[in-house]
């Protein structure tokens, strides 16, 4: 990069709920995080402009740092040479558009309609409506419904290649007549993806070309017994990040602000979608260390999962955005998707269901609130486990080796649609799991984040756990494009909090029986032996940066990474939590069925992890 060295950096991430700002400076030869500020994201009245939230978050840094970072008018960021004010560069990411809500259309509701729905769900969208030629609604009713729902995007499919054209064109006519107005109003054409009968492409283009941002992709159902969801799904993903997210009010202004001076010339730095930025960072880690990595970023409207696993000897990066899972805007959808029972099973005390439901709904309608009581915190962390679990399920289904390869279906499958295909995600192979997002980064105790990640992702064998210290991976991701060394340094020193290795034998046993013994050679040279007992958890102290050689001997049929019953020699790493021995079993992992026993076990595990202050044991009594 030409010009003066950049030593003062301001980076923001406009999330759907909260806008986070960080100040990074180069001091004594190294880039370090100096301050952090946050403010509610402002896409709703009274301040329908994302930059307001940015100004507020930066304003908080000003308050804490006692210096000015906003320009003289206080309507923008001061970027320039003045050492007494402002910074050398301002960069930003954004996911402020929130989740992705789609309407899909297909000729036959149970055939192409369903394929379209699957493609949209697979891309992490919320499907608000399935419009089909045979859905029983009249033309004008379909039109009215599309208008009322204001989808962010429409996926139009229908007809196998060489099949019906009339019906597909009729659906295009419905969309044309609806002329839906996007949520953020003026100046933007609604993205419509056409993934239907290729013979109808010309007529669909004629109908929709002018009034929408039409993108044509290969048919999702080229023949009856074969589904080809990849291209449509990828395009939904791409358009969401490039098109929909960028429509948040005030985004245009933010684009102008992001940049720096290079030799007297202003150079803009493009705003990166948050999932893109975090993904970049995860990929960077996997590449630098040559390991299998997963990352998860749980936000208010969306939960993003990233993975790097090998496929035919090559590392393959996969990213999924579950735009229907999150801790504020999408929190009720977590409840609806997972079911009340699945959420309740993680709550280590008795609770009235009606009360829990009201709490979740109130969080949805007032997304920026935070838990004040221990009980509220535990409930929120219970919900997060289900959001993370469901996001992983979605990621597993989509993280397949080669993108866009058609999934073969037999004629029988055509009537009973199920997902198939081998996933690349292998929890036994996973080396590092990184968590980010408010509920994980801001968990008052780091061991709470560790427990949430272990409970939801169920890592197997030896897996290092880490968490984004203060939810700054998005900002570092966008920074890594401009100043890779600064991003890497801050990521390593200030962002990545190493929690410690989790050792989890996979397989079934009986409560109280030893599933594996672990011999550990501590850094001081002493050797100790630990028993991993089925149904129990234990934490062994091992500090940040400390490593220990281990020899793990699993019981018959139990796998710790070398195969069932086979001994594994490896290394575990310490962290702020320590080494977690998780003897609760895998494949499958289950909670006790009875309420009393379930609560007793949850309390026991939480105590073993010192997850909560002891008074939590008296909650719900």
């Amino acid at each position: 990069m030409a010009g003066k060295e950049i030593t003062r950096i301001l980076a923001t991430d406009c999330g759907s709920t909260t806008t986070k700002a960080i100040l990074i400076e180069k001091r004594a030869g190294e880039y370090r995080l100096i301050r952090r500020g946050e403010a509610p994201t402002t896409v709703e009245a009274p301040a329908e402009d994302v930059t307001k939230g940015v100004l507020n978050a930066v304003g908080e840094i000003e308050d804490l740092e006692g210096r000015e970072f906003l320009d003289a008018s206080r309507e923008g960021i001061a970027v320039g040479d003045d050492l007494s004010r402002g910074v050398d560069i301002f960069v930003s990411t954004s996911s402020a558009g929130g989740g992705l809500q789609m309407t899909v259309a297909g000729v036959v509701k149970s055939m192409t309609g369903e394929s379209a729905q699957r493609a949209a769900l697979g891309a992490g969208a919320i499907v608000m409506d399935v419009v089909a030629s045979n859905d029983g609604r009249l033309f004008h009713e379909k039109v009215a419904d599309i208008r009322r729902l204001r989808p962010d995007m429409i996926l139009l499919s229908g007809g196998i290649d060489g099949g019906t054209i009339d019906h597909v064109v009729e659906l295009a006519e419905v969309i044309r007549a609806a002329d839906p107005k996007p949520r953020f109003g003026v100046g933007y054409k609604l993205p419509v993806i056409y993934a239907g009968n290729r013979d109808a492409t010309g007529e669909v283009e004629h109908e929709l070309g002018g009034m929408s941002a039409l993108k044509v992709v290969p048919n999702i159902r080229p023949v009856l017994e074969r589904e080809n969801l990849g291209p449509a799904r990828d395009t939904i993903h791409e358009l969401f990040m490039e098109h929909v997210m960028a429509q948040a009010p005030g985004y245009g202004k933010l684009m102008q602000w992001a940049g720096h001076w290079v030799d007297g010339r202003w150079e803009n730095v493009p705003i990166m979608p948050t999932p893109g930025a975090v993904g970049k960072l995860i990929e960077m880690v996997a590449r630098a260390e040559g390991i299998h990595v997963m990352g998860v970023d749980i936000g208010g409207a969306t939960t993003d999962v990233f993975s790097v696993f090998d496929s035919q000897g090559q590392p393959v990066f996969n990213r999924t955005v579950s735009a229907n899972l999150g801790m504020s805007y999408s929190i009720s959808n977590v409840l609806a998707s997972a079911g009340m029972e699945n959420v309740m099973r993680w709550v280590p005390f008795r609770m009235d269901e009606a009360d829990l439901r009201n709490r979740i709904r109130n969080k949805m309608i007032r997304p920026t609130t935070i838990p004040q009581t221990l009980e509220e915190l535990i409930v929120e962390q219970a919900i997060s486990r289900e959001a993370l679990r469901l996001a992983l399920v979605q990621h597993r289904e989509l993280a397949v080796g080669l993108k866009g390869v058609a999934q073969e279906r037999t004629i029988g499958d055509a009537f009973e649609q199920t997902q198939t295909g081998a996933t690349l995600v292998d929890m036994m192979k996973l080396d590092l799991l990184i968590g980010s997002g408010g509920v994980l980064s801001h968990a008052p105790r780091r061991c709470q984040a560790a427990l949430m990640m272990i409970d939801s992702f169920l890592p197997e064998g030896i897996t290092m756990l880490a968490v984004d210290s203060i939810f700054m991976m998005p900002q570092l991701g966008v920074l890594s494009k401009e100043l890779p060394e600064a991003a890497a340094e801050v990521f390593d020193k200030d962002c990545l909090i190493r929690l410690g290795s989790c050792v989890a034998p996979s397989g079934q046993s009986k409560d109280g029986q030893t599933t594996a013994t672990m011999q550990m050679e501590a850094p001081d040279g002493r050797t100790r032996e630990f028993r991993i007992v089925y149904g129990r958890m234990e934490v062994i102290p091992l500090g940040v940066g400390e490593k220990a050689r281990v020899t793990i001997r699993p019981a018959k049929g139990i796998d710790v990474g070398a195969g069932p019953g086979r001994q594994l020699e490896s290394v575990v790493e310490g962290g702020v939590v320590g080494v977690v021995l998780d003897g609760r079993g895998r494949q499958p992992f289950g909670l006790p069925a009875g309420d009393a026993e379930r609560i007793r076990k949850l309390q026991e595990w939480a105590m073993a992890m010192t997850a909560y202050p002891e008074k939590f044991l008296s909650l719900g009594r």
Partner: protein
Amino acid sequence: MAFAYTPGLRVADVTTVRKERRLPLKGRVLVREGADVDAETVVARTELPGNVKMLNIANILGVPPDDIPELLLKKEGDPLSENETIAQSRGLFGLFRNTVRSPIEGSFESFNKVTGQAVLREPPIPVTIDAYVKGRVVEVIPDEGVVVETRATFVQGIFGIGGEVRGFLKTVVKSPDQELTSDLIDASCSGRILVGGSFVTVATLRKAVSAGVKGMVVGGFDDRDLKDFLGYDLGVAITGHENKGITLVLTEGFGRMNMARATFDLLRSREGMLASINGATQIRAGVIRPEVVIPVGDEVQGKPPSREQGALVTGSPVRVIRAPYFGRLGRVSALPPELQQLETEAHVRVLEVEFGDGSRAVVPRANVELIEE
């Protein structure tokens, strides 16, 4: 966080409300710019082609399709009434004639000589759109609809279900903390929009539906009751299309929550006036909130808005919006700048609030919203 915003809910004594009224497809606008309209005034209409009914005349008469045209008593475009004869065979020496009668009222659209099929069409389906609120047409959208403007009392709720309805306002509770119970609903509530206090149950809501109540504006409602009433669990908050015989607007949230005094007093001051309400809610960026619009005409003078949005200062009236003080109203009594530790062990910016009964509590700044005086 140092900043607290309300979700932007408006409670306006008198304000200008504009409503766009568009047909779902092109048609005819029936009113002119400048026209005064009532809420029920149809401002635009269009017609959809009626449904089609296929009738295989050749099969019914047992005659080759080619021969049918001579037997048809109707030609393309002719109107039809139900049971009217469309075609008749010649029979044997004029006897044993077979007859084809129209199963529908509508018109004879076409006959296909190859298949022997006749296409009959039902009468066009009229689609109309009304003004929704009493006011004046300030803009005509050619072939599509109009924009209606009105001077009105305007109250936004936080969540609602059901679409647009109208009715005269009737306050059935004495205070904003009183539950709207089923004994308060009688025959006089038919066709009305009821203003309640803190809460309503699903049983009362059902009674209201059977009593012909058009809409209800209350403080809170249980989510379990919502699931019971709708018959499904709401995933994302996108509502307005529920067809449950009533429109419900919640002003405060889920659970038992006193309606804010200012909202309650304002609605009560409009007792007996015609209100248009809509439960449609979309909670996502680009939010839509449910609303109560009460056109007031020119005679009512409005108070200027008293609140500066977003400014949280000592003395600001606030509502706590999260447990353990959920729903309680009070005033900010202190704004300590330093972070404080909560019971959760998190360190956050807080404020101290003094409740109506004089008691005080410390709550995170993120957990309050400013309310109208």
